């Protein structure tokens, strides 16, 4: 990508004596994973377009500890959480937006009792807010009439009951939204949650992501939309397992929107 992104750190804001509108919590995947980095970039393109005064923590950001917690390591989780909370409180952060439902869930629900209370939004919720406020408008017709099916991330959907925001903003791309048989509350997990992303699955007769991708392929989609970097990886691998990588693409909601500017 050649397009120059405007990204400012919290440290820079502090030096100027200013507060950003929001803090973009990039998350570990969004920072290091090659596929997820593209999602971070797409989201920033949208933020830049809407002229949002946002900050990132940059090298000061550290893992939320979510994955350690799901794996059972409460110590490591709380260490990470308290370090992050100290940092966030020090910067007097009020609003946090993230592209990762796992960070979203843990900062929103599990940080408050450790001393970190913020308004936390998933990027699809924030994008909806920007569109509704007229700060962001989509004029492109890249996806007009394309069949797009949205895979609900567990930690956005069942965990926090956010089902409409991603669908709502996807609709703005004029895509033809199609639902999988199992959607929203009954959506099947992609298989990455609970620290499964970082280990081999237990013995079974199929991988979960292959099963979930089958659900998606049954809708005969052009695009599988996700709102989670881990789901994205799992669904992309699932498409390969079904040998459909030539006809079906997996994209984050932010990417679909950024391509519709």
């Amino acid at each position, binding site marked *: 990508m050649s397009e120059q992104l405007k990204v400012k750190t919290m440290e820079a804001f502090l030096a100027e004596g200013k507060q950003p509108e929001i803090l973009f919590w990039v998350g*570990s995947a969004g920072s290091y994973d090659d596929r997820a*980095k593209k999602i971070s970039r797409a989201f920033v393109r949208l933020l830049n377009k809407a002229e949002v005064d946002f900050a990132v923590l940059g090298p000061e950001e550290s893992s939320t500890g979510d*994955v350690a917690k799901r794996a*059972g390591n409460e110590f490591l989780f*709380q260490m990470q959480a308290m370090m992050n909370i100290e940092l966030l409180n020090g910067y007097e952060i009020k609003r946090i937006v993230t592209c990762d439902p796992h960070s979203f869930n843990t900062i929103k629900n599990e940080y408050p009792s450790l001393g970190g209370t913020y308004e936390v939004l998933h990027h699809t919720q924030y994008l909806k807010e920007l569109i509704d406020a007229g700060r962001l408008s989509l004029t492109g017709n890249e996806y007009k009439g394309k069949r797009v099916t949205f895979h609900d991330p567990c930690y956005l959907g*069942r*965990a926090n009951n956010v089902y409409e925001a991603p669908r709502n903003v996807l609709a703005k791309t004029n895509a033809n939204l199609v639902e999988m048989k199992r959607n929203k509350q009954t959506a099947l997990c992609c298989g990455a949650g609970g620290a499964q992303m970082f280990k081999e699955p237990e013995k079974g*007769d*199929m991988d979960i992501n292959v099963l*979930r991708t089958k659900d998606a392929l049954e809708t005969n989609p052009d695009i599988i939309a996700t709102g989670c970097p881990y789901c994205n990886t799992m669904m992309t691998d699932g498409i390969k397992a079904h040998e459909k990588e030539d006809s079906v693409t997996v994209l984050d909601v932010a990417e679909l929107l950024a391509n519709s500017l």
Partner: protein
Amino acid sequence: MQYIPNFLFALALGFGVWFFYNNVRKLIRNIKLGKEADVSGDRSERWSNMARIALGQSKMVVRPIAGFLHIIVYVGFIIINIEVLEIILDGLLGTHRLFAFLGGTYDFLIASFEILAFLVIVSVVIFWLRRNVIRLQRFLKPEMKGWPKQDGNLILYIELVLMFLFLTMNGADYQLQQMGAEHYAQAGSFPISQFLAPVFQGLSESTLIIIERGAWWLHILGILFFLNYLYYSKHLHILLAFPNTFYGRVKPQGQFNNLASVTNEVKLMMDPNADPFAADAGTEDAGEPEKFGASDVTDLNWVQLMNAYTCTECGRCTSECPANQTGKKLSPRKIMMDTRDRLEEVGKNMDANKGTFVPDGKQLLDDYITREELWACTTCNACVQACPVSIDPLSIIVEMRRYLVMEQSAAPTELNNMMSNIENNGAPWPYNQMDRLNWVNE
């Protein structure tokens, strides 16, 4: 002499209720073996959850066929219990159809009991077919072999027999009323049992009385038996569904509890000025450091233990579980069944040892729930979402993972690598924290 039936009835009733009372005490004692649970939160929300989920069966109808049939049996159970009240009073007072004075209302009540009884019979037969002939997958999982399968069928047989006895009793009564038999005054309306007339054709009054009395007695004794069967069966849900939905989760499903014992230690580690002895004196008077996570049922909290007794083994959780659907050993239903089985074992151990638990060298982990099951969970909450009575198998899985990781350092190697990466460089992968912003210019 004439009071012998009243006396026998009171004796049977008293014995049934006393036995049940003892089982309930045992049940409560076992549940209280659990640790304190966080049941804070809006009480009105809890009441409304109970009204909606338990009383209103809102989650049952997510699966329309089973949900509809279940509502029939459930409504039948509750409504027909009004009739049981009359039966008990009749039995104690030696009266017959005590409520007959209600006249038209009584006719209406009896008629609706009969129609419900008939619908219950139809539903129970369909339930039986689903388990034994259609053989729905979720009733055939490995954990359903043996007693759980028998238990499921036995409950259906008992319900069937009770409903038939009820209709036989009414049918014979109706015939006796037609004959003008003594003590059998015209009362009630019998839209279903009147069709039993051909069965009773040509029987003498005394035979009919024997049939009517026999059915009456067997019906009420059957109910007392069923009441006491509950504790030994998965059927406790008819009682526990109410407290269980009341004490069920009111926080977002994604929110896992933060262990307070860990918070204390982490705060000590992070604050160089903290006085570890001062904190210790305040929180730990027993001296023994708190165990992290759960390896046995007594490490779980009482709501989790009540969950285990509430589970009726319907298997909706397991059929929604992504791990189970892809052939892994994990079955959320089995987590609940194992928890209950182990808790029962601990309870029996206490009964045999004058109320104190004598270590038996067994625990929930490994002896009941294997590590392979625990590590297969994606924490996706599908099981929690699916449960019609607000059971949370996921919380038990997480509590046991905590034990494995924090007490035993027994996480799978890949997860240990992931966690040491977080410790070293603040990300699950081995990348330099200084490179966190590189994505901007790539």
